[in-house]
């Protein structure tokens, strides 16, 4: 368990954050720039001293203003991956990786060995090189390895992908997933990209103006209408939990099952049984009042309207339930007000929600741990 309850005045800005995160999994701190995400991480790392409050990680008190405890950063054993890799330019890649492992107060080595980390991150070929000779993606991988080898009890990642282009992001993402899935290392992940969070996060913490606006599972928070100004209106959408249940190799499709139906998507190179989170953007959902025939859309789900959001301009957002009777599954649709009136949509009204298969791409998916992953 990680407990944070801190307050800090930063100029005109008041940081006042309280949150609890579980012992494992990825906790995402999400919010626009300047909302205090990095300050929270820096306070955890000991690089920013809160005015008051306390920070406890895995039973160890790192900071407690009342008891006068403030462990220096070097005693906290938190692995910090910065946005800019911050590799030491005068050390080789190997020297950088071993820097934390050789620290004064280094505890008995816990966690993966040097070779395991080098394998995990695919950086064997880079060991003799200098940071100046590495690409952005390679630098970030080395930075992750360096933090890992300092035997951290918690990893802090401050927008580790923000300075990378799209191909480089896709290069790093699987490695972060492996930290989560294979090493079971708890991670605090700062980001302002919803895609990254859907792919990685278990717990989502929304920060707004230095305060926690909401925290909960990704599915729960993305289905809450009142949080859309924070989660991003243009990218508004719901996240649903599915399990990979079938491949259709003839047409290159995969089937993702959720309570209430099966979502057909372009084929995923993953084994059957893989738990997958899918983000369906509200603007990619089409509504029909009867089951449609003669349409190219293969994904049609029966459901009903739950809630209408206050209209904004010509558009309106609707919350739908397309799940089974026992397990509701929330989906968002964004349509024009005119369509809404003509179809006489109101809470309780039965509806068919259509999702275009090609609207879902690799940015829409994320794996999650449902306890089934190991056996599948």
């Amino acid at each position: 368990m990680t407990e944070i309850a801190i307050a800090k005045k930063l100029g005109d800005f008041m940081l006042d954050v309280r949150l609890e995160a579980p012992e494992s999994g990825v906790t995402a701190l999400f919010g626009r720039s300047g909302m205090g995400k990095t300050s929270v991480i820096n306070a955890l790392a000991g690089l920013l001293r809160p005015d008051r409050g306390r920070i406890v990680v895995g039973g160890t008190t790192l900071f407690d203003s009342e008891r006068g405890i403030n462990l220096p950063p070097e005693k906290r054993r938190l692995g910090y991956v910065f946005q800019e890799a911050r590799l030491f330019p005068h050390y080789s890649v190997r020297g950088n990786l071993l820097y934390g492992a050789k620290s004064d107060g280094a505890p008995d080595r816990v966690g993966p060995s040097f070779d395991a980390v080098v394998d995990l991150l695919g950086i064997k070929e880079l060991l003799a090189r200098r940071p100046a000779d590495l690409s952005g993606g390679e630098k970030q991988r080395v930075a992750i390895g360096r933090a890992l080898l300092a035997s951290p009890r918690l990893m802090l990642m401050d927008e580790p992908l923000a300075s990378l282009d799209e191909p480089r992001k896709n290069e790093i993402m699987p490695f972060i997933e492996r930290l989560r899935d294979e090493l079971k290392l708890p991670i605090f992940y700062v980001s302002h990209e919803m895609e990254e969070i859907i792919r990685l996060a278990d717990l989502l913490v929304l920060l707004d103006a230095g305060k926690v606006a909401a925290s909960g599972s990704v599915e729960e928070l993305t289905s809450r209408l009142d949080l859309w100004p924070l989660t991003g209106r243009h990218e508004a959408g719901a996240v649903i939990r599915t399990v990979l249940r079938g491949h259709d190799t003839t047409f290159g499709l995969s089937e993702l099952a959720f309570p209430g139906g099966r979502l057909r998507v372009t084929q995923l190179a993953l084994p059957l049984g893989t738990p997958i989170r899918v983000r369906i953007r509200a603007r990619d959902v089409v509504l029909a009042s009867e089951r449609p025939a003669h349409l190219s859309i293969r994904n049609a789900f029966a459901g009903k309207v739950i809630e209408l959001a206050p209209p904004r301009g010509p558009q309106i957002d609707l919350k739908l339930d397309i799940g089974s009777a026992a397990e509701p599954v929330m989906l968002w649709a964004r349509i024009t007000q005119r369509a809404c009136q003509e179809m006489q949509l109101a809470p309780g009204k039965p509806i068919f929600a259509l999702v275009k298969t090609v609207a879902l791409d690799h940015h829409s998916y994320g794996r999650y741990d449902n306890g089934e992953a190991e056996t599948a």
Partner: protein
Amino acid sequence: MLTPLEIEALQLSLLIGVVSIIGALPFAIACAWVLARCEFWGKSLFDGIVHLPLVLPPVAVGFALLVLFGRNGIIGAFLYQTFNFTFAFNWKGAALAAGVMAFPLMVRAMRLSIEAVDQKLEAAARSLGAGWWRVFATITLPLSVPGIIAGAILGFARSVGEFGATITFVSNIPGQTRTLPVALYTLTQVPGSDLPAFRLAALSVAVALAALVGSEMLARRMGRRLRGVD
């Protein structure tokens, strides 16, 4: 090519230059680090004191050294009685005077260089478990080496050219404290010694120029190596 007198003065100057810089180096690095990285009450005053030898008349510095480190001086008497060691009227005193005069120049160059070290790298090192000393020894110091070398060699050149404080503190003793500038001064006091004086002046120019050019080259090479370009 060189006369015995010239060789003696040159050797003495080089010895004093090297010893004074090596002696002053740890203090200069420490002061540079404090000025670059610490904020404290009275920092401007501290900064001023460090720079004092740069702006004071060298004779005043020499006089102050005499009062402090002369055999009857406050510190000098203690050193003489306890360790039977004295700076008075020998080459060690000349090295002390040269070191004190070169000190502010060294600190200035090193301070700039330490300030240029990215504190984000230091924070990264701390997050990896390195305590203050390890951060300094493995990150701050190596990354400021170009500036430290530049400062040391600038100080060396200044040290070799030191005159006012030296002659005031340790006088003009052949083989002990008669460095290049002091020997040059002595010659200018003797009528008809224009040529030997000119030769000594040329020798001083050569030493100073070699030191400055050497420092520039070395700093550039170290800089490239540190950035990992090389």
